[in-house]
């Protein structure tokens, strides 16, 4: 199952590397979000520091939605989705493969856009950097896993680009709350590390519950 998933992820990433369509869109979009936020919150102002954790997650969520929308729609053009479904592998490995591809793409986007954000807003990280990375990874993990699942669900609709955010935002609200709070504590107020850890545990619990749930339920979503 894992091998099929890796193969699928590799296929997605290779075809993405060839066109660079989605990845470029996501990165440019992330840059535009930073630009819009620089208009909304004056970067020269000191109070702007308080909104940086929120901005980080807005970038991830909005750029992530773009990538998630494409991940199953792109399989519909030549009806390759049917090919995947009747291929000798389980639905869960399709999910896992798509998840791995989306997850590596959002990681690349974060890697490129967040240094730019810190640079442009002249933000110095006060906290401990590895914890920040940990929050980024598990927060994106949860968001992308449930996002991949709901993208598979909404791909059945003709207007899936409109449907996906409506499904995804309310369901992922615990992750967004937890990730923003943990990021804020780690970046600006590292003394309160214990409460940041509590938030990280909440996100991790959410990740585990929903990853398992998606694994169980994906069989019903990806039926021929």
């Amino acid at each position, binding site marked *: 199952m894992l091998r099929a998933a890796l193969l699928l992820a590799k296929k997605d990433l290779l075809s993405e590397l060839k066109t660079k369509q989605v990845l470029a869109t996501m990165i440019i979009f992330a840059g535009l979000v930073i630009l819009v936020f620089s208009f909304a919150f004056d970067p020269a102002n000191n109070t702007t520091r308080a909104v940086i954790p929120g901005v980080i997650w807005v970038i991830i969520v909005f750029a992530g939605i773009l990538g998630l929308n494409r991940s199953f729609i792109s399989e519909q053009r030549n009806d390759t989705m049917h090919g995947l479904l009747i291929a000798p592998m389980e639905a869960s490995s399709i999910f896992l493969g798509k998840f791995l591809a989306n997850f590596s793409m959002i990681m690349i986007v974060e890697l490129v856009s967040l240094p730019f954000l810190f640079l442009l807003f002249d933000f110095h990280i006060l906290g401990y950097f590895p914890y920040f990375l940990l929050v980024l990874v598990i927060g994106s993990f949860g968001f992308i896993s449930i996002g991949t699942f709901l993208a598979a669900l909404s791909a059945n609709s003709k207007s899936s680009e409109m449907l996906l955010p*409506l499904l995804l935002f309310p369901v992922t609200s*615990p992750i967004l709350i937890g990730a923003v709070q943990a990021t804020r504590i780690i970046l600006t107020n590292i003394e309160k590390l214990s409460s940041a850890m*509590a938030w990280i545990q909440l996100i991790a619990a959410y990740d585990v*519950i929903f990853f398992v749930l998606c694994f169980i339920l994906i069989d*019903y979503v990806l039926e021929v």
Partner: protein
Amino acid sequence: MNTNTARKQASLLKTEPVAEKGTLFPKILLGATAVTVLASIYMIFIFSEVEKTMGVVQKIFYFHVSSAWCAFLAFFVTFVCSILYLAKRKRIFDTYAYVSAEIGVVFTSIVLTTGPIWAKSSWNTWWAWEPRLTTTLILWFIYMAYIMIRQMDGVWDKKARLAAVFGILGFIDVPIVFFAIRWWQSKFHPIVFGNGPSQKGGGITHTMLLALLVSIAALTLLYSYLLQKGVNLENMRIKVSQYKEKLREDMEK
């Protein structure tokens, strides 16, 4: 296609006895609903005493709490019927899940409109980002999304399958949302409004409690009546579309 028509016939046969048996039951349900709603109105406005600090505005509490209860009940029914649908693949479960979610959204909307009215007079603000309120709002959004899935185009069993999956996912999400928000809020302002039980549970008198219980019973009966009506309506709609399909097939022959 063959299995599809066979399934249609099966559901056609199955809806027949329900309609026959259902002639007496809805009438009893309607009568019980009418009686308890009237009783609850009497209990709320005449029988129970006026709350000391909040005054008459507190009367909204009875509708507010009982609609919240009905909303949760409705979503729980959706959750159970979604699981049953995925397990058994019978259309009746799907119909129940759909109708129940619709009624649940209506009750949640009632909660979300009566809440601010009450809050304005007792907390002096329309809205507070307090766990219960925020969770209810997110609940409303989740089940609006559920209804959006139902509006998708395509064959019914695909829609039913996807909606059932989302119904399960959404319901499991709700407690996590509640805990996340409670945690988030308690960090900043511990107990501002003395939310929920500490305020209501502390100062409730016998007459108020009785009125509350009667109004909960009334709205629960109203919910079951609406559910029964809605399912009947949905069954009729399905039947009509089947007959239409049959007519079209006959014409094409």
